[in-house]
């Protein structure tokens, strides 16, 4: 006897009325779970929207409180030697600080900078007459 075939071929019939009743019951369950799922989806949408709104508000708050005249403030650069006059650069205190900061190299650099500034100021102030005088042309004029 082929047991396998016997089990395969063993059929059952089902009551059509009960089939229909069970199917209707399942369809009701499906509709209910669908509604619940859509309600859950709505809640998630609200949560996502709220989260996005909070992020935007935080970004706006950051920009308004950390900027002035619509521009984000950048940290101020402390300009030490460039803003000082040649006299200040060559003062004893300034040279002493430069030595402490970087040794003789810093002192030399500071002198070079003072020299450069003096030269620049000389160039700016010199007139044509003075230049001619320096070249020995004063008497001719």
């Amino acid at each position: 006897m082929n047991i396998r075939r016997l089990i395969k071929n063993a059929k059952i019939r089902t009551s059509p009325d009960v089939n229909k009743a069970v199917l209707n019951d399942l369809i009701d369950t499906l509709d209910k779970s669908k509604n619940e799922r859509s309600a859950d989806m709505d809640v998630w949408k609200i949560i996502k929207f709220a989260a996005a709104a909070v992020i935007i508000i935080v970004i706006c708050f950051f920009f308004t409180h950390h900027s002035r005249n619509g521009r984000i403030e950048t940290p101020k650069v402390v300009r030490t030697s460039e803003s000082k006059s040649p006299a200040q650069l060559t003062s004893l205190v300034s040279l002493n600080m430069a030595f402490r900061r970087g040794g003789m190299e810093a002192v030399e650099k500071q002198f070079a900078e003072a020299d450069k500034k003096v030269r620049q100021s000389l160039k700016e102030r010199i007139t044509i007459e003075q230049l001619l005088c320096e070249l020995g042309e004063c008497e001719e004029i």
Partner: protein
Amino acid sequence: MLEDKLLIWKLKRGSRDALQRIYEKYRDDMLRIAAGLLNQTSSAEDAVHDVFTAFVCSAGSFELTGSLKGYLATCVANRARNMLRSQNRQRTVTLGDIEPAGSNFKRPDQWIIYDEQFSLLSNALAELPYEQKEAVILHIQGNMKFRDIARLQETSIKTAQSRYRYGITKLRSILDGEVPK
């Protein structure tokens, strides 16, 4: 397989037609498995109803990895086990309350109507140990692989195969005297 995937996809979007198709496609197979495992008509009907209801409720998050029939058969087998366990715990049911599968008694709201061959088979299956019966029914009626049966029974594949073999041998010896060759 491809049709099942499509049906699941539609069911996830709330399609009633997909649900109807799945239900009509697998209803009889699941009822046969449940009736074979539980050997009790009303419990088998309840088990299949519960499985389909749970399946519909979880349809939104359901991901089909294997065959849908295998999945539903596993659900029916698990449900049948739970029902048997709870029946064993309660032990308040008298023998008169139990309505064996294949009996001539028919309730007005009875879902399963047995033919003679199924009644014979069901009575023979009732004599098998539960694990053997499960292995035989799930392999032949549920088209499940021994690997999946072993996973369900939390045992090795060899053991599941042995259970199936012993079950078939015992069924043959029971039915040999009852069914004409």
